[in-house]
């Protein structure tokens, strides 16, 4: 028998004589707490990984003082951040200033509802039938938080930063969503588990039937738009240090700043996880012969490879200019994404599964 969270909680509740209709809400609560701690853990070590990898690429050592290999560095940084004074600018718009980081963080957290970490129902919080659409809908909310942060800070750097952020996120949301459509067309399903299942099998006994095979263009468009959505270099003009101090979060400190930071790195994991699911077969092994390795390791492995690619790009390329960013998004990425949808339509029409 497979051990599931629902099974454990049901058993405990039976022993303690707690009514059975409390099981479902408790499962939801426990699952959401588990996901929250997963995000915190992932973010702590993504930051560490980013600093180490950037260090190596730029021929430096990176953090190495706190703990073995500097492994406790980000824990120390997080504690320092929590202990800092939470400053509210005197001329800030009080309640929008407070809710802005929450508007940014909550959607970044909600996306984890549909991410399939492994095979079957116990590895995904809720496999929605509108999964892909849910992701694009939820990921469109943080823009409001970023604009609110910039506006409420009552600071020109913040306002300029959030102005750029709004322009960039709105522009790159379109190619991101358009690049997510072809996998949906190929799988005939918007549920993320359904999309993974549609990628099962191999061609000629070797090549995995991942959607990447016909979607190299779509994958490239997705990754470029994902770089922009998680505002990494070369698309980090919204918080360009040399031009804007720190962009929309200039006035933020302490816990509120930590929430922005958390959302940013959680978003980096999210976009990579979605790319792994839509194009690289999610938790499926490269070849059925390798299926003795548990699905969750395949999923995390693919996601971490994609995160490494994002960090690699980030530490190699210079920043683009605002107008270049806009014209690239609207005049290159969107037409290519539309072309890719037409191509996928031809694939579905002439090579039905």
């Amino acid at each position, binding site marked *: 028998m497979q051990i599931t969270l629902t099974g454990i909680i049901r058993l405990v509740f039976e022993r303690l004589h707690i009514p059975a209709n409390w099981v479902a809400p408790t499962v939801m609560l426990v699952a959401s707490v588990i996901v929250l701690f997963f995000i915190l853990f992932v973010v702590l070590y993504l930051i560490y990984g980013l600093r180490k990898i950037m260090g190596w690429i730029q021929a430096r050592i990176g953090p190495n003082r706190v703990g073995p290999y500097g492994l406790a560095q980000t824990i120390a940084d997080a504690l320092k951040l929590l202990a800092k004074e939470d400053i509210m600018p005197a001329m800030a718009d009080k309640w929008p200033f407070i809710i802005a980081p929450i508007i940014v963080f909550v959607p970044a957290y909600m996306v984890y509802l549909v991410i399939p970490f492994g095979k079957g129902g116990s590895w995904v919080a809720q496999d929605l039938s*509108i999964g892909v*659409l849910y992701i694009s809908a939820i990921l469109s909310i943080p823009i409001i938080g970023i604009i609110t942060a910039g506006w409420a800070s009552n600071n020109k750097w913040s306002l300029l930063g959030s102005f750029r952020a709004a322009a960039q996120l709105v522009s790159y949301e379109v190619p991101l969503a358009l690049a997510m459509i072809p996998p949906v067309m190929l799988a005939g399903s918007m549920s993320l588990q359904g999309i993974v299942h549609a990628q099962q099998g191999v061609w000629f006994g070797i090549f995995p039937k991942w959607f990447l095979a016909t979607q190299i263009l779509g994958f490239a468009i997705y990754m470029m738009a994902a770089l922009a959505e998680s505002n990494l270099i070369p698309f980090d003009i919204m918080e360009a240090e040399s031009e804007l101090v720190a962009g929309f979060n200039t006035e933020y400190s302490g816990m509120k700043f930590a929430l922005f930071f958390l959302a940013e790195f959680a978003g980096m994991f999210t976009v990579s996880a979605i790319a792994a699911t839509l194009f690289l077969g999610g938790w499926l092994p490269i070849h059925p012969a390798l299926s003795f390795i548990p699905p969750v390791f395949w999923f995390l492995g693919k996601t971490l490879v994609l995160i490494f690619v994002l960090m690699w790009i980030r530490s190699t390329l210079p920043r683009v200019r605002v107008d270049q960013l806009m014209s690239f998004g609207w005049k290159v990425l969107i037409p290519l994404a539309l072309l890719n949808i037409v191509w996928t339509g031809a694939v579905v029409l002439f090579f039905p599964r």
Partner: protein
Amino acid sequence: MPTITLQQFMFGAIALVILGSAILVATLRNIFHCLLFLALSFLGVAGVYLLLSADFLAAVQVLVYIGAITVLMMFALMMTHRVMTTDISQSLTQWWLAPLPIALGIFAVLFRVYVRHGGQALVDTKHHAVPTTGIIGQALLTRYMLPFELASILLLVAMVGAIILAKEDKSDDPA
């Protein structure tokens, strides 16, 4: 005393959020705050769709109304410096009667639907939700093909029109 179901309770709570934030949108003096409450109101409408098992519509509601329309309004707001900094009264005392016919008209339409269906629920919310995406797609490309195509053409025309309006006129002398 009649017991209320969880669903009725949720509907009440969501309706309260929608109406409360809609009233704040119409009365607050700071226009940026109005926009934030407008977004909350849109989110409440998405909640109503969820209660009616319309998952596709709920997601589209969030995507279009919060992700696009509210953000567009905020964008426009940030470009108009004067509106941003001053607190403006929203009420026009001589126009208070104008919303009345609109509200009555909407009420008349809803009442007609209610009467026509004999007070029965239009949507079956007792049972588990079925995925609506496929059904909506089928309906749009078969029975409602013409309205769907017309709406697409309307949007295309609006888009081309907007581009023409925003484009610099190069034929004129630089003045």
